[in-house]
């Protein structure tokens, strides 16, 4: 195996729109959660719970949905690649 510094992954995957979407889905929670200033406030409250708390708990559900979507897309992507590879008689690594 090569050790050249520019080799990122041995099986350098082509960047496809689907993969970009998967990456965005997985990255979105980081932006939302680490940008604390965007949600550090008490209003609007939900059934008496300040915004700061219910918003983050809502993100548990949103990130779950995003990860689940990423999982489904990834499964499809893998299946498509596998069938493409067997049709071509094997793609170069």
């Amino acid at each position: 195996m090569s050790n050249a510094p520019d080799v990122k992954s041995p099986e350098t995957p082509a960047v496809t729109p689907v993969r970009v979407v998967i990456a965005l889905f997985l990255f979105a929670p980081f932006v939302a959660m680490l940008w604390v200033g965007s949600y550090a406030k008490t209003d609007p409250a939900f059934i008496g719970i300040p915004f700061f708390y219910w918003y983050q708990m809502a993100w548990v559900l949103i990130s779950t949905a995003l990860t689940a979507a990423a999982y489904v897309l990834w499964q499809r992507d893998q299946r498509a690649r596998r069938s493409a590879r067997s049709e071509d008689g094997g793609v170069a690594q």
Partner: protein
Amino acid sequence: MKDGVNGVALAVFIFFFLAVTVMGFMAARWRKAENEHSLDEWGLGGRSFGTWITWFLLGGDLYTAYTFVAVPAAIYAAGAAGFFAVPYTILVYPLIFTFLPRLWSVSHRHGYVTTSDFVRGRFGSKGLSLAVALTGILATMPYIALQLVGIQAVLDVMGVGGGENTNWFIKDLPLLIAFGVLAAYTYSSGLRAPALIAFVKDTLIYIVIAVAIIYIPIKLGGFDDIFAKASEAYGQTNPATGAPRGALVPGDANQWTYATLALGSALALFMYPHSITATLSSKSREVIRRNTTILPLYSLMLGLLALLGFMAIAAGVKVQNGQLAIPQLFETMFPDWFAGVAFAAIGIGALVPAAIMSIAAANLFTRNIYKDFIKPDATPAQETKVSKLVSLLVKVGALVFVLTMDKTVAINFQLLGGIWILQTFPALVGGLFTRWCHRWALLAGWAVGMIYGTVAAWNVSSPTQKHFGGSSAEIPGIGEIGYIGLTAFVLNVAVTVVLTFVLRAAKAPDGIDETKPSDYTADAGDAGVQVELPPATAGSSH
């Protein structure tokens, strides 16, 4: 606190405790494999767990009794700052979605049982593998001690912990019994015991949370009242610091701390040996990915639990030791029998992770210290025997720690453990994606991160403690207050990258990589991936 022993609660607690003890011993016969004397079998449950068992096991493992006591306790003490646990657990899942399946694949191809096994195979460096193993063991031990602290808190509130004046033996007897039971069934059943008990633990916890989150707010007059009272309490000046006790929402100055704590903790969580143990015991790569979509259920639970901290304030719970806030809230609000159920949930919640953690630490010792450095020709049966003994020793060590030292020592070490374990990230996760980093550079980066993190944590003082007063300090060059672990991690990566350039230019010898690119994407059913692998170390001869 009510005087004397809460008889009804204690009876319910003992009932559940006995039930899980019986389960723990019967677990040895559950999904039994042909070869019970291999480390795979005892230490990874035969690598046979499907989505749901893995979910229970991981949940039982990551959301420990200490979490249940400490997160609301932090909220009770200071408000918003304690809620970082929620964004932290949100960030964990997208992260592990990307790297854990690769670790699963390569481990199943090469029969790796621990993260150090992988690091040694990938970088051909026993030194780096030893560093990872030692960090893992060091970081896990105080974590086990904290589980025992969790049990102690519950026993105290039930009145069986005894007061300050009771004889130490009577005072610690209940803890000793709980500990003996834990040690015995881990020894006999291995990872199967906590996997089975995790079902009971999670069911109890879910019931308690569901009831608590509906019943307590109704009794306290709704969330509006709860937060109004909490807000008022946080506004009062703390005589020790001269500053307000806390805040409902983090101010500008605290936002960096909040974000870096969430990110740093998320990066660290799956470096802990016990979370890797639970992951590798699953039967396929897909089980892991599927789990990242259902594990967040626990985060929701954690968020609801954190709200209990506000309820403790609103209910007028006043405790010196914040750890007792939630057990005390349960005893105040719930009828005795249900308080017993809640206590059992916390108590059993301590046993599951303590068992998995001691197994994980023992695996590390056996594979990466005993076998690599002491007895290279150990047979699988010998490995299992050593692992079982070490898991016992680790637990005894944790017990001695809790009984002889101040509780704050355990908490300080746990804090340090988090900082330390994060320093293994570049070697482990970096190694899963690229072989570019040089093994010596990784070792140097690790050392720098460990030293910086330890020194920085030592220098943090709080009104009550001179050293180890917290986990945040000023980030050099930025000037904001941030999580020390994350700063140390950035330093670690910087050193690794710079030294790799230097070492590559100097043509320093690179270790031998025994893995192939296809190893990282292999799944169950692919060639070379067996459900059960014999421990495949270079020295094992049959």
